[in-house]
């Protein structure tokens, strides 16, 4: 127990520290790098809780893909942060209220599990303790919740196509590469043998 407790506090302290640095660091790129550190430690906490599938998914999806795009965008933007910080004090109360509401809700969830433990057993599907994490999740997602799961996937697909459609511009008069046409091209289509009489030219 002591060892896992030690690692819990290690991950938790680094996580909170990194989260504080995300909002307080001066350079936006540093903020994103601290965000990645925070994700990483959150994955460590998941791992300690025995949710190894969730932990690795957090790393693959958020750190490996989403945060890369964050970093991509933040590095390319030329933002004047002195200007951005001007309204900081003005907006601080609103941010504080949102933060307090979120924190209260999280505390209520945690307290709820302690005060009324029967809430946990009310979850729809009983979890088979002999199965591995990945298998248990897969069995629930692809049987009981298959329509909801695929519906969520469809919503994401529609959102993705929507984003592409919104930004797609077809300029007329631009010559595009057509790989099929290039590959199908033969010498007979582009080379012509011409007999030129001497002294006359074409």
């Amino acid at each position, binding site marked *: *127990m*002591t*060892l896992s407790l030690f690692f819990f506090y290690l991950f938790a302290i680094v996580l909170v520290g990194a989260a504080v640095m995300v909002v307080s660091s001066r*350079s936006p*790129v*540093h903020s994103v*790098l601290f965000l*990645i550190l925070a994700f990483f430690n959150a994955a460590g906490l998941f791992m300690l809780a025995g949710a*190894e*599938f969730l932990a*690795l*998914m957090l*790393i*693959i999806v958020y*750190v*490996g*893909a989403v945060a*890369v*795009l964050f*970093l*991509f965008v933040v*590095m*390319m933007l030329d933002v004047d942060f002195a200007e951005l910080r001007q309204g900081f004090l003005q907006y601080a109360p609103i941010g504080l209220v949102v933060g307090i509401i979120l924190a209260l809700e999280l505390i209520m969830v945690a307290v709820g599990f302690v005060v009324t433990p029967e809430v946990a057993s009310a979850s729809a599907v009983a979890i088979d303790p002999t199965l*591995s*994490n*990945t298998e248990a999740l897969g069995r629930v997602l692809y049987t009981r919740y298959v329509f909801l799961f695929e519906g969520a996937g469809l919503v994401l697909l529609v959102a993705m196509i929507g984003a592409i459609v919104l930004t797609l511009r077809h300029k007329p008069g631009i010559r595009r*590469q057509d*790989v099929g046409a290039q590959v199908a091209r033969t010498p007979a289509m582009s080379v012509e043998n011409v007999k030129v009489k001497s002294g006359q030219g074409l």
Partner: protein
Amino acid sequence: MNEFLHALDYLLGLSFFGWGTEIGFVWKALLLLVALLIFIAFVLLADRKIWAAVQMRRGPNVVGAFGLLQSFADLLKFVFKEPVVPAGADKVVFLLAPLLTVTLSLAAWAIIPLDFGWALADINVGILYILAISSLGVYGIIMGGWASNSKYPFLSALRSAAQMVSYEVSIGFVIITVLLCVGSLNLSDIVLAQNGGGLATMLGMPALTFLNWYWLPLLPMFVIFFISALAETNRPPFDLVEAESELVAGFMVEYGSTPYMMFMLGEYVAIITMSAMMTILFLGGWASPLDFAPFTWVPGSIWFIFKVCAAFFMFSIVKAFVPRYRYDQLMRLGWKVFLPISLAAVVVVALVLQLTGWGWTPGVA
């Protein structure tokens, strides 16, 4: 306190000094690390020699017999040079980037099984771990490119971010087709599944084990995996990150001495990791290709290393004779060719497995 001692024993145990029940994790990890680094030294030399041979040159042949010690000479040269950090660079991130690259690429080796039961950590979500580690590899390049505070490295970092994220998608789907056949995320299980029956058994020739392996039934996936692995590790013909004709040397322009060497090392370790993944997913891991006398005498780890070398030879020879892709062609290949093919393959493989009942159940050898 008891648990703490137990953990210490697991990490540092030395059975032949009467302390601990088995050899500690740290010692095994150190042994693997040293062996891997020496292997990388010769792989680097082999890469240069193969490249030279294709161009009818000799390659490095001065240091040691046949130039065998060239990599060690290079190592000393890099280490003894003064590291220069550009004045405009973000110093912490600049030095963190090569460290991150090396650490992450070496971390992948914690779970790769060289032989039956030889993995440092034989975890159940092995494939996910490999995917997670390899998806983090892009950070070393992005951080290095950005922290250099220079135009060419920055362009290169942006290129690499888009390139690696794109090809990870098709690699992911290729791995899913293999996982569908195996039914487990464990790397050892993937190798066991390939040797527990398959095409050779169906044809009535169980001695030809190499026909059992997934490279044959999943041949298109094998090809896609190989090409995507080239792109994922920034090897030619997809080395647009370095593209010396356009970007000087890409994200490494501002680096020299030890930090540069670490980038180089990380890159080669990543290539060897990808070769090992090809070996595990498609070439039957540690198994002998023919199941009779002289071949079965060779230990599994030797077969594994041999297969990794063969996979690396392909990486190396491609570098020598394929011209570099243009960036838009690279993106087209990733998103418009590989993604649809691998996505369709997932559906087809799942359908075939469902209809025929083939595949492998974990626990049945």
